[in-house]
Each structure stands twice: as structure tokens, then as C-alpha cells.
């Protein structure tokens, strides 16, 4: 067939390009001897250095790595990666040292019973997440989510990773080129060449000539060379909802070689943004993301240094020279246009709260790999589905992140005041908040099976930040049984928490063992 899709060209490396290449190449075997060969070329600029930012992932990364065929042991060793079990928030509610947690494990028996109303009846003690999952007890002690005897990718409690994004891209590059048959072209793209029908026919490069393809994947970062520049798909700013447009990123060494490694991301709210603190085995990745309209870079730097002083001492703060990053929060109006799809920052970027960047790449690469259009004719249908789905994902990210700000009671700066302004809250979120005044979110709130953030995450944020859903004014026939079952589950959860605290090793202890012995595959 003339219009068979047999050559994919990815423009841009980084974690977006290489993760996409890995997922597609693992799903569609590249075999030059095949009768109908399938090719995957990744064009990477030799002049753009990769930047080693510490990044958080979602638990989906475990299945993505398995899908690509990477060993977890190799991944942990090569990417300076550690285990992440969720996020711990400080100063988000009142700014007076308040804390709450968003763990990756859903509440105990979540499939069968909604514990939130039963927890609300307890009037606040213990905190919601502590009452419904043992995981938060593990955060507190910097414990690992598994043991050295647990097979790779399997868990005792659900987990994701913190990783060095630069080293992750390096590992993926090696794996893609050495094991998965991806062709790596080191060149700069000079020009995008259109076909007669308006598709992209090829790209012209400075050292590898013209490279033609059937499907082009734009992983060129915020430049958005193909989708944005060539096709002119407009960028839609979301800054009216989410104000943060700047970041200061740095690294802080551990004071002691054997210092405990946090097993969750720490997020500490400031007067015009928040500070992330990510524990990798060799260092901590710390940064401040903020709204440049509400605070100057100098003030933001001062707040970051004050945080580093607090957690690591004066000497650590003196050595810090943060790297400044500006970004426009928002996304393209569509993501797949004609024979070009944008993945990663070329499709959009929103501040790193809740670590949505890598998971969006996984979802995008996964959908393209699963639904790889066999012909050009089918591509437009897949593209429409893709655009609908990713518009939904972006909307959910915006609404879910905004939820963190809306629920805050902070009133100590214009940033927080502006965050409460009705105009800054997406309509759908306002509606949901009204609904949730009368019932806690549960399965009925999931609009699709592939929602980015599960309904349990909404429970953790809402009830973690003191949001109360009013008790129903009618009683179920089974009210007493349900209440009894809930009490029993709270008790079981507390028992399991102390049992796991005894059984699980420290995050650093397990990472050292992985370095020495590795995980078994079964």
C-alpha cells in the first residue's frame, strides 16, 4: 500500500524524545530484514546539552520501564534514581507549619468502600492519609516501599521514582540504539519541508541531509519546531489559572554520606510559589517555582536560600548558584496535526506540582505505540482521538493543580489572594468543589478509565487540606454495618503501618543494596 506508515522520525532527544522512541520501538519491532520494514529515526542536536534536573514520576513509570525492557536495577543505578512514594506538603494550608500527604497508595479497600465520610465523622484525628493508608507512616521514617527480596518492579507499597532526567535520557538513548534498533542521527534540523498535501515530507539537517518520514514526532522542547513553528498551531496560555512561570533550580549535597533519603517529594509553599525538594541517592534536587508577576527573582532566590539554610545549614546555602528557568504555563491548541504530533514541552508545560511532565510523555508515547495508524488515511482519525484525550488530560492537570491553591486558607500575599479570585478558578473545578461540599469524590468522579489523577488523589488533597464534605442527610440501611467495617479498616490500617515500619528498610539502605546485589527478576 502506498500510504503505509513505516517510518517514524522523532525530532529532539531529551527524556521526551528517548522515552517516546523507547515505547514505540518496544511495541513495533524494528527489523531491517522484515518484508515490510518499520523504521524509527531520532534526530538529536549535538549542540544542545542535556540538563540534569531531578524529577519526580508517577507509579506508571514502573510499567513504562518494563514495557521498554529496561531492568529496574540498571535504571536505579544509572539514573541516580530513588524511590518516591508520594508528596508531602508543608505550609500549603495556613502557612504556619501545617502539613499533609498525598501518597501513591489508594485508601485501604478503596474499590469497595469510600472511607472519606467515615473519616470525616472522626473529626480530624488522625489526618486523613494516615487513617486510610500505611504509606504516610513510611514517609516519616524515610523508608523504602519494598525489600531487597521483592522482585524488580513489584512492591510492598505502591511507588514511583525520583531521578536525574539527564542521566535518564542517556540510559534510554543507549537502550534505544543498542537494543531496540532506533537509528540515532546527530544533527541540527535546519528546515521543515512540506509535502504537496500539506503534511511534513521531510526535515533538512546540517550534517545528515534530508530525512523523510511518514509520521513526525516533535520533541523539540518549548521551541515546538514542527507543530508550533512549522504548522503554526497556537499556544494557549493557562496563566490565568496557574500563575507560576519561573523556576530556580539547584542541587544540594548531603551533609553525611549515609544521610537518610526522603521517600517522597517535599513541597513547601512560599509567598508566591512553592519549593520542591527531591531526594536522589547522591544529592538533593531543590528548586523554587513562582509567579514572576508576584515576586522578583531576587526575592524568590532569597526564599530558596532561606529554605536551604533551614534544611541543610548556612554552608550549603552559601555554595548555591541556582539556574533560572522561565516558562509559559499552557499548551498547544491541538497536539496532533496532520502527520505531526508534539510530545513533551513542545506540546505544553505546566509547573512541576504533582510531577505531570514525565507521565504525560508516557501517556502520549503509549497511545501512539498502541494506536500506531497503519495508513495515512487512518492517521486523521487517531489524531482526533488523541487531541480529544490530551485536551482532557491538560484540563485535568490544570484543575487538579489549581485545587491545591484554591483550598489554601493562606491570605498573606497577593499571590494567594489572587489564587482565590473566582476568575482564576476553572468553571469545572468550581462546580466540582460545590458538589464535593455534599459528598467526597469517589469512583463516580472518574470520567474515563485512563484519568491522569485517580479519584483517590482528589480525596487526599481535599481532606488533607481540611476540606469537609457535609454528611448526607439520609441514612443508608447498611449505615451501621458500613460504619463498623470502616472502624475495622482504620484499625487494620494502623496495625499494618506499624508492621511495615518494622519490616521495611530505609530508602538509602535499600538503594545501597540494589547497587551491591540488584533486584531479582522474580
Amino acid at each position, binding site marked *: 500500500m502506498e500510504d503505509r506508515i513505516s517510518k517514524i522520525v522523532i525530532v529532539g532527544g531529551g527524556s521526551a524524545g528517548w522515552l517516546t522512541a523507547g515505547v514505540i520501538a518496544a511495541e513495533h519491532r524494528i527489523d531491517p530484514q522484515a518484508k515490510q520494514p518499520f523504521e524509527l529515526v531520532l534526530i538529536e542536536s549535538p549542540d544542545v546539552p542535556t540538563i540534569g534536573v531531578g524529577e519526580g514520576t508517577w507509579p506508571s513509570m514502573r510499567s513504562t520501564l518494563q514495557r521498554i525492557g529496561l531492568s529496574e536495577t540498571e535504571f536505579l543505578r544509572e539514573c541516580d534514581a530513588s524511590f518516591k512514594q508520594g508528596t508531602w506538603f508543608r505550609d500549603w494550608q495556613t502557612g504556619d507549619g501545617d502539613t499533609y500527604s498525598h501518597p501513591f497508595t489508594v485508601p485501604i479497600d478503596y474499590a469497595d468502600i469510600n472511607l472519606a465520610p467515615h473519616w470525616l465523622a472522626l473529626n480530624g484525628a488522625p489526618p486523613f492519609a494516615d487513617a486510610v493508608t500505611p504509606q504516610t507512616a513510611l514517609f516519616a521514617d524515610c523508608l523504602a516501599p519494598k525489600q*531487597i527480596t521483592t522482585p524488580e518492579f513489584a512492591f510492598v507499597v505502591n511507588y514511583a521514582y525520583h531521578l536525574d532526567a539527564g542521566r535518564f535520557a542517556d540510559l534510554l538513548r543507549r537502550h534505544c540504539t543498542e537494543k531496540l534498533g532506533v537509528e540515532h542521527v546527530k544533527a541540527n534540523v535546519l528546515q521543515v519541508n512540506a509535502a504537496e498535501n500539506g503534511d511534513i515530507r521531510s526535515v533538512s539537517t546540517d550534517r545528515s541531509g534530508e530525512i523523510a518520514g511518514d509520521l513526525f514526532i516533535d520533541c523539540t522542547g518549548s521551541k515546538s519546531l514542527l507543530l508550533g513553528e512549522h504548522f503554526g498551531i497556537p499556544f494557549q496560555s493557562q496563566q490565568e489559572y496557574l500563575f507560576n512561570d519561573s523556576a530556580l533550580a539547584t542541587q544540594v549535597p548531603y551533609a553525611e554520606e549515609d544521610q537518610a533519603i526522603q521517600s517522597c517529594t517535599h513541597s513547601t509553599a512560599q509567598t508566591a510559589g512553592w519549593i520542591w525538594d527531591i531526594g536522589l541517592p547522591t544529592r538533593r534536587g531543590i528548586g523554587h517555582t513562582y509567579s514572576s508577576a508576584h515576586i522578583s527573582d531576587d526575592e524568590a532566590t532569597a526564599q530558596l536560600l532561606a529554605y536551604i539554610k533551614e534544611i541543610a545549614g548556612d554552608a550549603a546555602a552559601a555554595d548555591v548558584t541556582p539556574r533560572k528557568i522561565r516558562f509559559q504555563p499552557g499548551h498547544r491548541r491541538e497536539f496532533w496535526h496532520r502527520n505531526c504530533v508534539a510530545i513533551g514541552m513542545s506540546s505544553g508545560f505546566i509547573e512541576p506540582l504533582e510531577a505531570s511532565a514525565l507521565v504525560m510523555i508516557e501517556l502520549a508515547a503509549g497511545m501512539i505505540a498502541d494506536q500506531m495508524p497503519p495508513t495515512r488515511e487512518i492517521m486523521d482519525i487517531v489524531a482526533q482521538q488523541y487531541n480529544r484525550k490530551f485536551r482532557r488530560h491538560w484540563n485535568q492537570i490544570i484543575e487538579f493543580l489549581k485545587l491545591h491553591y484554591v483550598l489554601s486558607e493562606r491570605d498573606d500575599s497577593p499571590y494567594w489572594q489572587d489564587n482565590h479570585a473566582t476568575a482564576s478558578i476553572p468553571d469545572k473545578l468550581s462546580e466540582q468543589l460545590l458538589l464535593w461540599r455534599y459528598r467526597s469524590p469517589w469512583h463516580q468522579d472518574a470520567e474515563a478509565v485512563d484519568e491522569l489523577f485517580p479519584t483517590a488523589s482528589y480525596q487526599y488533597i481535599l481532606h488533607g487540606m481540611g476540606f469537609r464534605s457535609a454528611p448526607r442527610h439520609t441514612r443508608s440501611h447498611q449505615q451501621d454495618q458500613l460504619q463498623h467495617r470502616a472502624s475495622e479498616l482504620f484499625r487494620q490500617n494502623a496495625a499494618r503501618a506499624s508492621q511495615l515500619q518494622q519490616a521495611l528498610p530505609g530508602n538509602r539502605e535499600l538503594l545501597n543494596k540494589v547497587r551491591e546485589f540488584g533486584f*531479582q527478576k522474580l
Partner: protein
Amino acid sequence: MSQYEVLNKEKHRQLRIKTGYGAALGDAVMSAMTFPLEFRDIQSCYPILFTKDPNTGGFFPAAIMGFEKDQNLFLQDDGWDAPYIPALAQRQPFLIATGGEGDDRPPVVSLDLDHPRVSQDEGESLFDNEGEPSEFLKQKIALLDKLHGGLQHSVGFVDTLLQHELLEQITLDIAFNDGSKQTLQGFYSIAEEQLYQLKGDVLESLNQAGYLQPIFMAVASLSRMRGLIERRNRLRV
């Protein structure tokens, strides 16, 4: 807790070692590590399963003697009721210690001073009046040598099993006659379907390394599980 010391003629001259088997002598264990060179003897009495070292996650084969922690169904009032006792149980309270990888010093014999077999006045002497090792000690040292070589050979055996994906997880749900149930978790057995798919060259290399026979012995040993369950059923609880 264990307190190991390198065996020393002067220091340990007066020590005696209690022989025989019993719970009071530290033999109430549900499994004992074994190694392929011992499989022929082990499979005549015990099921062989693979389990993981809690410290390293590494696999090792073990002779199974019970269904729960500290349960050795072969222990009776008058000793260990089996024609063969695993070398790892026979060697107590001794241990053969090496300096680890990269250390070429010869292995040394150590003993656990806190072991219930160690006594001042009861059991076999370690040294004779001249300070020379007793016949008893010589036998134990010979056993430790065999154990040491056997465990080293076992490392390559386990690596090879993993390389050919010949281990699989096994969960045993056992119902006993008294109505009680037990789930045996954390154990692995030879993946038989995988084993029967192996091609000639792989089988030849397994055979040359001395791994093929123990693989089939481990498979056959699983029929000893029936006998173990019977022992459990005979227990008066």
C-alpha cells in the same frame, strides 16, 4: 544472638560440643540451606525449594523441614528422624569464614560461642591433651570443607538457573487433617515447562557444569512434600 570467633587452640582448648539433635540444641528450623552436590542425599528425605537471602535477595536452594518458622517436623524426642541430615545442620556450631570477594586468604574455621551446643563440661572435646585437633573436630573440619566447596559451586548453579529462567514462584496452600491451613510463601521451584523446552546445546552445557542432574533431583524432591505433610498430620497439637 550469634557470637562467632575464629577457632583458636589456646582459647578454645577446654570447650566441648554437645552432639545429637533436638530443639534445645538449636535444630528447630523449618529449612536448611543446601547445595547441588548434596541434592542426591537431600532429595531422599526432603523437598528442595529455592528461597531468597533476606539480606541480599539472592536465591539459594533449601531443604524444607517444616511449614512454619521454627518448625522442624523431623525432630523427635530421641533426635533427628531421617537417614540423612543436611550438612548445614550437621556443621553446627561451626562456620567456615572467608574474607569475601578479592580476599585470597584461606577460609578459617569459626565457631558460635553463643550456640546451645557449646559447653564447658558436656560433649565432645575439640582438642586432645596435646592440643591437637580431636577426631571429632577433624570430622567437622572435613565437613566444613565439603560445605564450602558445595556452596561455591551452588552460586554458579543458581546464576545458571536464573539465566535460563528455570525458577518460578510457587505458592503452596496446604490443608492439614486437623482442619488447619498453611500457606507456604516466598519459595520457588524449578520451572518444569521451561526445563522441557531447553535445546540440546543448553542441556549439554548444563550437564558439563554438573547442573543437569541436580535440576532433575530438585524436581523429583517435590514428591517428598507428601511425606512432610504426613509428618505434620501426625503431630499431636
